[in-house]
Structure formats: structure tokens, C-alpha cells
């Protein structure tokens, strides 16, 4: 479970160059503003409206935000990030708009560029603020609407613009397209793994992400190993392999839809009943919660995060794990999008418990976890590097307090952010993947009689 550090550095370099490849904005100022407002009008729901109406400006959301807490800069107050939407709503959609117009400023172009930083660079849509808000305002969900509005005005950070454009134009990310993926599959097969690609019929469609292809090959290998071991009927699809969705991250709805549709097509093609999302935070809600609505109909398959899938297999007794022992002190970092956004926070813990490691639950973990600081594409935004690093201090404090030797993660971009953060801060905690850890400690099927004593039965629900 190592990462090729050379690849890692090359990847980091590539990220630094991302911005220079960004396509230029072709809209006039008026068109920008109109596009923003049109998106707001289109995306607004009664739920958002009622929540925009109810804010009492108490500022408690700031206390939940890693960016505010670590910098103390009030501009990062989460609710303030909704100001564009809030002002548009108050002036043009609210029942009391005729009154609000008297004292609510209209959105200006300056505001748009100022808020670009607030909704992209300094918000990971982690939704921790939604957990503290006494009025129950779903700030993260509305930040997404702000991102979509700015995206409609071509006003997203250059790095994300490049990524979205690439995913739209070539169905690739960082140059990894169908062809590169097929090569990756061959590499895996060369390692002696049985990899299914483009099978006509399979119960499970396994997705991967560009990060796993470029950097975390071992995670990819581990997933394949586990699926084979569990004797599942599964396949990769060379057309729909990418779980990452930069349309979703950057708010470009057309790209989001196109990326989603590739996966759905692939799943339909093989008749998959389950689509497994790899260790990639945003990919999960993108497929689990967004896809059906973009598609306009319920999905014909179930969407599971790989941790969720493994947890389920553990529970029914298919997956047997070796006891690692208490000498291994680990903690777990919940990906916001999988735990807090999607309620899949228990499975990783079940897996770690089955591995019988010394699990140290961090203070404010689970659905209350602090974001790594790099989610929702923030990791790719170069100008946000220092802010990200500031937020990462919170993670270091949080895990230092647990006394664990390593942090287990189940999200590739969290892991990247941890690695960069740890490198900058000379933080010495281990950073490892949950899937890799599980795959490394799985009980192989044969021969059952000899190794009976090693079979872990704790995970069995009976």
C-alpha cells in the first residue's frame, strides 16, 4: 500500500499547470449577470426559499467551518457565502420582494468575482455548518447552486474550468481517457489479477477514479482483489469507468449530466444491479443523489460506496477479515460527502472493528467530522493552497489528540489533501486507504480447514 512518490510529485506539478490551460470566458458582463440570475431562478426550490427566509444572522455556522475556525477571518462565515443567492432571492423571488428591494443591493460583477473565492476556494460543501445551524439552513446545498450560477457565467476558478472542459470534450481527466484506462487494466492483469472489462453481463459495475488510476493503483488493485474474492459477477466499463464528476464539482450542469450519463449507460449495458463508487468523496453523492434527478427517472441500479459495499458483505458474513491486533492504532477520517452527506458513516467503523485494530474515534468524528479542507475541488485550486493548509491544521490537531499512529481514509482526494498537507507540515502520521487495509487483511478462501482459527467471525451478524 504504497504510493509512487514520483507519480505523486508529477501529479502535483500537473495540478499547478492546470490553470494555464483554462478556456477563456466569452460572455459580456450583462450576459454573466443574466446567466447567474437565470441559474438561481431555475435552481431555487421551496426548501431553499424557506431556509433563505429564516436566517437570523447568529453567525454560529462560522464555528463549524474549518476555514473560519483556523483563520478567524469572518468573510468565511458559511451563511455569507450564500449572499449572492440570498440577495437575488430577496430582490426577485421572495414573497416580500417588493419590500426587500428597498434595502437589498442588486448583484454586481464585482460581487461575482468576490464570491467566486468564497464559494469555490473557501467552501468544500462539507455541510458541517448545516449541522450547527439553529434554523436548519442547508448551506452546503445552496453553495452548490451558487457554484452552478457562477459556472453559468463562466466564472469558476481556472483549474476547475480546465477539468470540466476536459471531461466535456474528451471524456477524460488529466489525460486519462478510455484508452489510458484500458492500459491500466492491462497493467493490473500483468500483476496477476483477474480483471473484467466490458463484460456483457455483470451484477456489479465497478467504477474507479482518475486519482486511483494515476496514483493509487493499489486501491484499484485492492478493489479488484476483493470483488474477485467475494466471487461477485462484476465488470469495469471502458466507456463508463470514471466516478469523478467535475461537472458536479465545478457546477457545470451539462458536464455533470454527460459524466453521469456515461456511467448510467455503462451500467445499463451490462445490466448491473449495483454500481460501486470507489474511494472518491464527491463521486458518491453525484451518483447516489444527483444522477437520478439529472436523468429524470429513478436509476435501475443501486449505488454503493466501496466502503458501504464491503461493510454490507462483512455484515452478511461473506467478507472475513483477519485480526490485525491492538498494536495498530488507527483513526478514521470520514469523507464529508459519504458520511455527513450520505449517511454511510457506520460501515468503515464496522470494518475497522472487524480488523480488531485499536480504533481511536476522533473528537467530532463521523457525521460531525471536520473536512480535510480540500474537498469539492478545492484541492485543485492553486491559489487556495495556504487556506487549505490552514484548515488542515484542524485535522492534525484532531488526529494528534487521538494518539493514533495512522489515519485511515476512504476518499482519494481527502487522501491527496492529507498527503500534501502532511508533507508541508512534516506531519508524521500514517495515511492509508481503507480498501487497501481491508484487502491486505482479508481471509483468503482456501484452505479452510488449516486456517480456521484465523477466520474472523466477529463481523458475522449472527
Amino acid at each position: 500500500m504504497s504510493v509512487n512518490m514520483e507519480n505523486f510529485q508529477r501529479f502535483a506539478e500537473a495540478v499547478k499547470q492546470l490553470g494555464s490551460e483554462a478556456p477563456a470566458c466569452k460572455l459580456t458582463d450583462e450576459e454573466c449577470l443574466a446567466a447567474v440570475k437565470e441559474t438561481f431562478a431555475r435552481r431555487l426550490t421551496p426548501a431553499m426559499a424557506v431556509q433563505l427566509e429564516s436566517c437570523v444572522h447568529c453567525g454560529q455556522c462560522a464555528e463549524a467551518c474549518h476555514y473560519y475556525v483556523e483563520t478567524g477571518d469572518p468573510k468565511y462565515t458559511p451563511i455569507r457565502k450564500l449572499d449572492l443567492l440570498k440577495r437575488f432571492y430577496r430582490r426577485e423571488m421572495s414573497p416580500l420582494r417588493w419590500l426587500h428591494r428597498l434595502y437589498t443591493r442588486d448583484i454586481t460583477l464585482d460581487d461575482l468575482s468576490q464570491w467566486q473565492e468564497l464559494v469555490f476556494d473557501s467552501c468544500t460543501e462539507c455541510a458541517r455548518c448545516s449541522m450547527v445551524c439553529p434554523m436548519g439552513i442547508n448551506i452546503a446545498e445552496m453553495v452548490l447552486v451558487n457554484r452552478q450560477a457562477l459556472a453559468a457565467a463562466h466564472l469558476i476558478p481556472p483549474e476547475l474550468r480546465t477539468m470540466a472542459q476536459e471531461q466535456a470534450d474528451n471524456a477524460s481527466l488529466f489525460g486519462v481517457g478510455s484508452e489510458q484506462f484500458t492500459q491500466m487494466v492491462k497493467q493490473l492483469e500483468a500483476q496477476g489479477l483477474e480483471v473484467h472489462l466490458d463484460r456483457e453481463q455483470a451484477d456489479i459495475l465497478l467504477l474507479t477514479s482518475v486519482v486511483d488510476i494515476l496514483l493509487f493503483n493499489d486501491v484499484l488493485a485492492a478493489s479488484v482483489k476483493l470483488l474477485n474474492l467475494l466471487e461477485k459477477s462484476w465488470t469495469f466499463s471502458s466507456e463508463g469507468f470514471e466516478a469523478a464528476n467535475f461537472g458536479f464539482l465545478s457546477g457545470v450542469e451539462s458536464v455533470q449530466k454527460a459524466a453521469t450519463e456515461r456511467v448510467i449507460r455503462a451500467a445499463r449495458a451490462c445490466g448491473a444491479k449495483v454500481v460501486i463508487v470507489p474511494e472518491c468523496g464527491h463521486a458518491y453523492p453525484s451518483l447516489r443523489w444527483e444522477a437520478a434527478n439529472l436523468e429524470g427517472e429513478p436509476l435501475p441500479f443501486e449505488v454503493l460506496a466501496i466502503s458501504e459495499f464491503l461493510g454490507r458483505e462483512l455484515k452478511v458474513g461473506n467478507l472475513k477479515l483477519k485480526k490485525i491486533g491492538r498494536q495498530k492504532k488507527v483513526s478514521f477520517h470520514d469523507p464529508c460527502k459519504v458520511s455527513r452527506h450520505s449517511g454511510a458513516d457506520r460501515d468503515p467503523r464496522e470494518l475497522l472493528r472487524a480488523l480488531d485494530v485499536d480504533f481511536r474515534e476522533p473528537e467530532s468524528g463521523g457525521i460531525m467530522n471536520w473536512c480535510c479542507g480540500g474537498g469539492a475541488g478545492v484541492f485543485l485550486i492553486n491559489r487556495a493552497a495556504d487556506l487549505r493548509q490552514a484548515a488542515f491544521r484542524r485535522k492534525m490537531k484532531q488526529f494528534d489528540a487521538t494518539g493514533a499512529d495512522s489515519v485511515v481514509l476512504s476518499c482519494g482526494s481527502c487522501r491527496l489533501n492529507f498527503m500534501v498537507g502532511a508533507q508541508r507540515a512534516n506531519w508524521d502520521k500514517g495515511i492509508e486507504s481503507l480498501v487497501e487495509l481491508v484487502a491486505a487483511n482479508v481471509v483468503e478462501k482456501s484452505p479452510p480447514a488449516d486456517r480456521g482459527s484465523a477466520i474472523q467471525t466477529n463481523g458475522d451478524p449472527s
Partner: protein
Amino acid sequence: MTLLEFARGPAMSWALIILVAGLTWRLAGLLLLLRRRDLSRPRNTHTWWGGFRTIFTRFWPHREFLRPTAFHLAMGYVLHIGLFVVVFLFVPHILYFKGLLGISWPGLPNKVVLLAGALTLGALVAFLVRRLTHPVMRTISGWDDYFSWLVVTLPVVTGLMAFSHLGARYETLLAWHLLSVELMLIWLPFGKLAHAVLFIPSRAQLGAWFQRRGVRA
């Protein structure tokens, strides 16, 4: 017509009319916006239960937020309980509600109400100081926040003045008190004071959203 007669008669009638019209206007205005049926597969189906539960669970913060929100929690409770006691458990107020609604309930001795009023005022002052000095609150505050503060504080101050016959003749103080209450009633539907009712649908929306995703908000 004296000031008191104005305050007791037409001003109160109109304030109530504006209160009701404004609130129904604001709430009804949220109904017809386009809804999107969520087609994703829910983790939990009883979303209404999550919504209902969250209306109540948000009265107290999650353990993790207890310390960072201690000020708001403490002062918020003093303010809201104080207002509740003063508004609903002061005997003359109960008589007013009896006249308006036809129902009555037992009140508290004036000394207790007076103490609650003083604590309420203290909490209001604490909130104002915090709003003026805390960087976050200062940044996100607008005139609605300060005006709404004033509109809530005035009835408390004039109420305490009328109660202790301080500053002017009783009927003048009573008129001021009534007028300030009427100002509050008139402003309530239009500014942030409407959170008095909006907190319910707002919390419920979040609770339902999270419930659908299998998260206890």
C-alpha cells in the same frame, strides 16, 4: 383620542391585521415555487419523521458544537424563555390573550415576571454587544438585525417602565408599551423576527433532507 386610546384601539387592530396578513403573505408566497421531486433512491423513506424530529433536536446543539456556541445557547435560552415568561405568564398579558383568543391560563407572580423581564433585557443587551463586537456577527449583520433588535427591545423596556411606573405617567408608559408591541407585531412578518414561525419549516426541510440520506441531523 388620547395616545392610549389610539394604542389600545385602532393601532392594535391594525397591528394584528398587518401581522396576520404579513405572515400569511410570506408563508403562502413560498408555496408555489417549483418543486423537484427527488428521484434518487432514499436511504430512509419516512422523511417526514426526520423533519419532525429535527424541529425539536435543533433546540439543543450537537455535543461537538456545545462549546463554540455556548454564548448563543445560554443567551438565546435566557432571551427566549424570558420573553416567553414575560409575554405569556404575566397576568395582564394573559387577560389580553383571553380577550383575543377566549382562553386563559394561570400566571406567575409579578416579581418572577419582573426578574424574567430584567434577564431578557440583559440578554438583549448582551446580544447587541456581541453583534457589534464579534467579527463574524458584525460582518453578517444588516439593518434588519439592528432594527429587529430595537423592535424587540422597546416593548421589553417600555414594559418594564410601565410595570415600575418609571419615567412618565402610567397611561403614557402603557401607551408607549402598546405602541412598541404593535411596532413589533407589524415588523414581525417582514423581517427576521419571522423566524418565530419560519424555524419550523426551515428545520423540517433540513431534517427531511438528511433523513432521506440516512443522517441524523
